[in-house]
């Protein structure tokens, strides 16, 4: 099966593969309006956004495994519930991500071992331990070596950022941020 993990738009062939249907069936559903999508401008090619495909699969009780397993696993760690909620909303809506959350450094360690995320979005200042300690602990674990760490914090001291990068963080983005920039960076880091 092709890698659909980071795709946001699918062709009818890809949709057929994901749903386990024939391409003709997908085309019929598209043309009848049961499966939403759009045609490529100046051509007749059909395209189906990820969230529309997901909706179609849920409506027709098609197993989601093929699509779900492709999603990027993201662990959001922040002590502010509003920020966690915002990340969950933004990433879930995008459809490419499977999101879990933690509010302390300790919970972050437990959840990382359990969930094995592709990437951790980590707030620097946590109630129990600082982000650099979390980074170091994760980098010491053999199982989590491949996990990416993106630090997001309102603290902007350059020396602290350098310490974080030395402790094993892959990148730093300052709060407040542009959501699209963060999403793009997550994808880049995971692909990279």
């Amino acid at each position, binding site marked *: 099966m092709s890698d659909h993990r980071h795709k946001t738009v699918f062709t009818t062939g890809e949709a057929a593969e994901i749903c386990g249907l024939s391409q003709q069936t997908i085309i019929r559903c598209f043309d009848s309006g049961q499966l939403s999508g759009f045609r490529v401008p100046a051509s007749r090619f059909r395209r189906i956004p990820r969230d529309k495909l997901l909706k179609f699969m849920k409506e027709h009780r098609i197993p989601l495994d093929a699509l779900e397993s492709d999603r990027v696993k993201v662990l959001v760690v922040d002590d*502010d519930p509003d920020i966690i909620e915002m990340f969950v909303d933004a990433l879930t809506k995008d459809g490419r991500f499977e999101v879990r959350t933690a509010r302390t450094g300790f919970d972050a360690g437990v959840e990382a071992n359990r969930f094995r995320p592709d990437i951790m979005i980590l707030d620097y200042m946590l109630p129990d331990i600082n982000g650099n300690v979390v980074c170091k602990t994760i980098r010491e674990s053999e199982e989590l070596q491949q996990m990416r760490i993106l630090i997001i914090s309102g603290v902007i*001291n*350059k020396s602290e950022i350098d310490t974080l990068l030395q402790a094993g963080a892959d990148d730093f983005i300052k709060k*407040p941020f542009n959501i699209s920039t963060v999403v793009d960076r997550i994808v880049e880091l995971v692909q990279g």
Partner: protein
Amino acid sequence: MADCTQMPQPLPGVPTSRQLDLLVEQLAMLPPLPAPFLRALNRCWEGELSLEDLQLCLEADPAVSAAMRSLANEFIGQSVDSDVQALAQTPLHHCLALLVWRWVYAPLIGSRVESYRPLWRQSLRQALLAEQAAGELPACSAFLASLLHDVGRAGLLHCLPKAYDRLLRSAGASSPQVEMQLLATDHLLLGRRLAMHWQLPSYIQDCIWLHHQPPEALPQELASTRLIKLIQWARFVSSHSVAELAQVRLQAKLEQMSQAVGVAPQAVPAMLADLPIQLSSLEMIDLAPLTDRPMPRPARKGNDALATTPAAQPGALTALTASLRPETSLPEVCRGIAQAFASTLAIESAPADGAGDQPCFAFALAGSTCLAASSGPVGSRCVRSWQCRTHVRPPEQYLLPADEVLARLIQDQSWKELLSGIEYDCIPLAGSDGRMSGGILLPRQRSVPRETIAPLLDLARFAISSCADRAEADHLAEESAAATRRLAQVQQFLAEAQALASVGEMAAGAAHEMNNPLTVISGRAQLLARRLTEPKDRQDMELIVRKADELSELATQLLSFAQPQDPKPQVVSLPELLTQTVQEAANQAQPKPRCQSVDIDIQPDCGRVRCDAQQLHDVVQELLVNAAIASKGRAAVQIRADNADGAVRVQVIDNGPGMNSATLAMAFVPFFSSRPAGRGRGLGLSQALRKIQANGGRMWIESQSGAGTTVIIELPKAEPEDRQ
């Protein structure tokens, strides 16, 4: 021109009030003040100044009398025949201002009225304010003390006519601290010496040398403390406009200072509004004739005659005794003694050929200063001083060669010019503590046996010893006052550092605590914007995002202002750094303002400085942006670099509209901006100053309305042994 946690401007060195002696040499021969004027000054403080006192003052000098009558003519529009009538027709402060100009300022000024006019005008403004706010103090004493409190500045202008203004301009400020750095003395100490020379009443003397003292350091028991605070208040009020005083930070200071002198802060705007009318009335006094006409002869020094007229020793003794008063200064005592010996020896010994023209000298040791006065005519450098060794024991001989004694006292050979190659003998004098206190230098051909001049010698020993002790005590008092002022500066420096540290902690906390909610506000607005279809609705959401970013950026700037990065000093090639910064400024993306062109002129021998390259780059970039805004991108901006006493000076010059004095005074204050609201936060220059100070440098601005602006940075030059 202040000053800031990274140990910024070097604090001035130990004040050496003895440096003053060099300047006092020039002031020693100023004519004394007429007795009626001194009496009037005292009567003012006692609150008993009468018309008769002023009438006596006018009678003492025809120039004053004529000026007063002419002034009265102006007031009533008809001819005035008598001094009494003139005094009755003009406000009291007109007469007082006229007397002060004539007898205090005019002898200092010579023909340079215009050089002194700004100082005079400034003093008049302050005097008028102090007079209005005098309350329970006699209004005339408040006016006089305020008018005279900056006389030390006039003294410095007199001693350094061409240099004083220029020195202060180059330092970008005018304060005792700057004067101390540049001249190793200040106008307060010089003013005090002038006041002592003129024997001004103690309330005026106190105001002259203590008006920069922090209010809490003024002794409560001092009778003139309230008057000094009143002068400090008048200085503060007169240097600001009503609009400036309405600003929050100045308002608090105004209230505090006004409370200390019993003035209602609400009354200040009305006082300032009245000021121009009163000032123009006082400026009706025609200063030129008061300055040009010679001083009346009786005001000359009493002992002048002794130097020229031979008299019997008892006569010389009597004259010397009569001239000695508790307030007589050390140069005057030495000169009186030298003249007494000269006149005595003219009778006691028959001078050899030409010896009659050779002056006698008397010298005194006060602390580490040796001060010598000649019996020669006035104006022939008759008072001179040197640094000398202390605690010298006097030789036991009555008479020995002068060069032997002077070489023991003074380390260098500078005393030799005093004797002009003529052979002198020295009679050493011992003080009450057994140390040498001074001596008499007599031309060798005119030396006389001890017995002949014993009474005169005893009087000289006593006079020099007691006066030198008093001069030393004065030195200590002056140094103590200067130390108190320095202590206050250090306290202020520490308070500022503490305040900045608190702001830093607060900003760090705020950056974290504000950025979390701002992230939610901005993030939610971005998510909402995706769902909205109406362009206007989307724009509104984007505005929320933009403003959240601005608020976050403000917290970031505040943090970097309060907690600047520690500099990483290295040897920096100035031409390289300046060229690179200018190129970056030219290539940067809009909307940052850009200069039309930048001319760089770097002197060949100032290529390397020691500083943090990134911080210097940031500062120059900030200055270029400011210059571009000032010149509206239409005129060329210049960057010059040259040497300045072991440092390298970089100047960024624009031909913009310049700054007025109020803007200039506030230029480095955080959050002050003269640009329209919403354009800049006013942190750029203050941040730049902190960075330069952190790198051991100085930064100041020279600007005038309509004449462009020059920002000057001074950085330590890299030593040849410094490595990259």
